[in-house]
């Protein structure tokens, strides 16, 4: 094994201390700088270089994430969504008696069996689903805060389900029998809608793309290793082109 190969392997081992997203973005160019800075014949990284890499890698792992304001607001609204899920559960539990009275007022022949069927079909799913949805909201807030693209997609799906359940509530005349439940549901839907608009905002894009290797990095990584081959990517006012 040549000195350069051995040195490069040692540097790669040190670079492994950095977070994966940072490595994906900078590993190859850092390696190029480290190899260019190394003296000829060196087989192992110097102590100062190693200490600098490890110190900064630890800092990169510990430093707080700073998402853009749009994402910050979206995360706050996800937490608010979790709180509203629990409020909706409390409202359903508190208005359960009133709901039965309201139904009986409209349908005097409403039997106990029908009421049990109603509880199993509509109330029980809310009682079980609301704590799960609240936990999901908090988990998605955490994952979106870390910049995971799948978490954004998952929240969109979650918002779709919330919209469908609200439409179903309107379809079942919830406005007549359970207006307070419906008001909380509408509040929850509005919070979800604003959250969706915020995470889909172009200003949130950079936060999510940090974890995604972009096209030019992928293609340049492919080009690295092809001896004598020179590839240039140039940024011109936001558009990318290969020369």
């Amino acid at each position: 094994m040549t000195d350069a190969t051995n040195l490069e392997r040692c540097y790669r081992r040190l670079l492994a201390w950095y977070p994966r997203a940072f490595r994906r973005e900078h590993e190859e160019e850092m390696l190029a700088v480290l190899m260019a800075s190394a003296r000829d014949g060196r087989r192992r990284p110097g102590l100062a270089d190693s200490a600098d890499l490890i110190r900064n890698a630890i800092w990169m792992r510990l430093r707080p994430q700073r998402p853009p304001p749009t994402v910050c607001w979206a995360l706050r609204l996800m937490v608010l969504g979790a709180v509203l899920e629990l409020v909706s559960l409390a409202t359903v539990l508190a208005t359960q008696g009133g709901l039965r009275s309201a139904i009986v007022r409209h349908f005097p022949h409403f039997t106990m069996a029908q009421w049990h069927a109603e509880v199993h079909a509509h109330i029980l799913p809310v009682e079980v689903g609301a704590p799960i949805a609240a936990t999901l909201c908090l988990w998605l807030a955490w994952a979106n805060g870390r910049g995971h693209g799948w978490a954004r997609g998952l929240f969109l799906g979650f918002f779709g389900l919330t919209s469908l359940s609200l439409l179903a509530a309107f379809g079942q005349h919830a406005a007549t029998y359970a207006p307070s439940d419906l008001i909380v549901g509408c509040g929850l839907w509005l919070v979800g809608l604003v959250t969706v608009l915020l995470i889909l905002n172009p200003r949130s894009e950079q936060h999510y793309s940090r974890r995604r290797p972009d096209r030019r990095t992928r293609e340049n990584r492919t080009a690295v290793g092809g001896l004598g081959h020179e590839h240039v990517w140039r940024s011109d006012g936001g558009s990318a082109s290969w020369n």
Partner: protein
Amino acid sequence: MQEATFLILTALAAGSQHGYGIITDVTGISDGRVRLRAGTLYTALDRLREDGLIEVDHEEVVDSRLRRYYRLMPAGAERLSEEAARLQANADVAMSRLDVSGGLAT
């Protein structure tokens, strides 16, 4: 603003540069006093990019190694200019007081 950040922005004020170019330029600007290491440089570059002060200009592969060139953005130029003005003002005050006292600290 930390000195390393100030020097990196100063290096990029002359035009786009790649990582190794910034290191050698910073050494030159500081007369050999500041020697940036790769870990410190890329942590700073990552933060500056996040803050919208610099951006990637272009990339190339030379001798099978990736070179990414960074350039100063208008916000970065403005921050650098503000910081330079602040340092200049402090230096002016220090120099004028040294002139008054005949350059002697007692």
